[in-house]
């Protein structure tokens, strides 16, 4: 294996999202993270590099603040990073993200294998991987739970409705990974220190030919609300009996 590209997205950590008093979305106290399944993509790149050699480029498209994600990706084991950064890249929809990635990768990043998470924690549109493969004209294997590379042949186990399918493809190819493909390691202090010495290439919107128009327009975002009665019960025998009585009254037992 020669060149592995791991794509990742720097996203809002949904655990910090609150619902405002009017049912609006309160993002005032949010933190950010590398999208969960993209961590599996980076980890899989590191795992393959340990087995077959080669080097890893982490690539992301985002706003300039996503630079923290670059450092995180490098401390997780990428050798270098390509940061396609511009304030214009806030809120890109998947077709735009895929075309920006493909243009930037074509312009200056070598690849034999591209790894993506199966979907992002924020949009979970599950599109950027397969769209990017189409743009680059390479085979695409999605929802992979086990991956192996021998020479220029990759073998992947991908999850399908009926079970598992084992597929083969010649490199270069793109693979999207499921969370159970591996357990991402947690970077240590030494990893973080080394990360700051690794090379980062920044690409701005002005250096790309043009940014494609959005094909999907977001016309509204509202907090999702479940109306539930929130009745509380205690743990003594009387309360447990009341709980079972309530289930019976509701007709579920």
């Amino acid at each position, binding site marked *: 294996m020669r060149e592995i590209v791991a794509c990742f997205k720097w996203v809002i950590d*949904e*655990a910090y*999202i609150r619902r405002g008093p009017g049912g609006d*979305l309160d993002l005032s106290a949010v933190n950010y993270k590398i999208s969960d399944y993209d961590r599996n993509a980076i980890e899989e790149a590191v795992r393959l590099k340990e087995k077959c050699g080669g080097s890893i480029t982490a690539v992301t498209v985002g706003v300039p603040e996503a630079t923290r994600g670059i450092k995180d990706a490098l401390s997780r084991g990428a050798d270098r990073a390509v940061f396609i950064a511009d304030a214009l890249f806030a809120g890109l929809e998947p*077709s735009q993200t*895929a075309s920006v990635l493909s243009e930037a990768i074509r312009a200056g990043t070598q690849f034999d294998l591209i790894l993506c998470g*199966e*979907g992002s*924690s*924020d*949009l*979970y*549109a*599950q*599109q950027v991987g397969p*769209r990017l*493969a*189409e*743009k680059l004209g*390479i*085979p*695409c294997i*999605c*929802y992979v739970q086990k991956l192996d590379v021998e020479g220029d042949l990759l073998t992947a186990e*991908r999850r399908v*409705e009926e*079970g*598992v*399918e*084992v*597929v083969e*493809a010649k490199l270069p190819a793109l693979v999207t990974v499921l969370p159970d493909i591996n*357990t991402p390691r947690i970077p240590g202090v030494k990893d973080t220190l080394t990360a700051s010495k690794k090379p980062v290439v920044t690409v701005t919107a002005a250096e790309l030919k043009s940014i*494609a128009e*959005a*094909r*999907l*327009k*977001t016309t509204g*975002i*509202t*907090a*999702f609300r*479940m109306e*539930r009665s*929130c*009745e*509380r*019960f*205690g*743990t003594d*025998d009387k309360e*447990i*009996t009341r*709980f*079972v009585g309530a*289930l019976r009254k*509701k007709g*579920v*037992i």
Partner: protein
Amino acid sequence: MAGIWVYADNPSLTLELLTAASSIAEGLKTGVAVILSHDRDRAQDYIDCGADEVFLLPPLSGDRSAGDYAPVIADAAREKKPDAILVAGTSGGKEIAARVAARLDTGLCGNCISMSVEGDSLVMDRFLYGGAAVQKVAFMAKPALATIPPRAYEPSRPTPGRQGEVEELPAPPISGIKVAGSRGREKRTEDISEAQVVVCAGRGFEKKEDLAMAREIADLLGGSVGCTRPVSEELHWLPEELCIGLSGIEVKPALYLGIGVSGQIQHVTGIRDAKIVSAVNKDENAPIFAVADMGIVGDLYEVLPKLISALKKAKG
């Protein structure tokens, strides 16, 4: 000419998509077409169930993958210009939808949870942030593509005497992907998506053997056992097929009982259609209580034995 196309990898999902397509076809003043790969000799059945046209995909040899159909579907859409293509949201469906959308340079609403026609345009809803928010989207290009989660619509039923056209699509070019083998899902688990009672085991359980208590309660209630993502993915106590959540199985039982479940948003989104949500958790601030109809705040190791005996008593 049929303006709404549907594509699914199997017959039951095709029938569900026909229901979805019919719900918007009238508003868009157009017909419905089925792109059929799996049971080609049953084209008339789909016409009976609402299709005005059926496009037959040629069968593939065993070492080829259904993903190979992406260029054929995209070419047909380029030629016939449908308004929308609805694809069943299985793993294969989601991949093919994204690839067709990329080829047609158009928008795709992944995991659509509802759709309607406003004026003469399609509007769809989908979840954001693991289900914490709902995103409304409009399409800026045609065709509008969407993936529809399985079981979101009832299967369409036949209306006798319907007529429709059948057309063959060309064979797909050879792709770089070869299917070398496959194995079926091990039949070690039941399908919890249709269970009337779901008892869900969360991280609150201290060891695998203790899940027997969840199983006992499920048996008493005539239900099935599911779990949260950490229980299947990190602890491997239960198989992946029992993992409930936005990226796992979505359940819609009459009763959901979460035991030791904290209530992370991705999980909660997967139980949103439960009629009654109940929970046992020792942390009174656990998010699950905010989305539960009935909550017992207490240590599951204290509560479950009592609950088991109360349920036995209630059953006589």
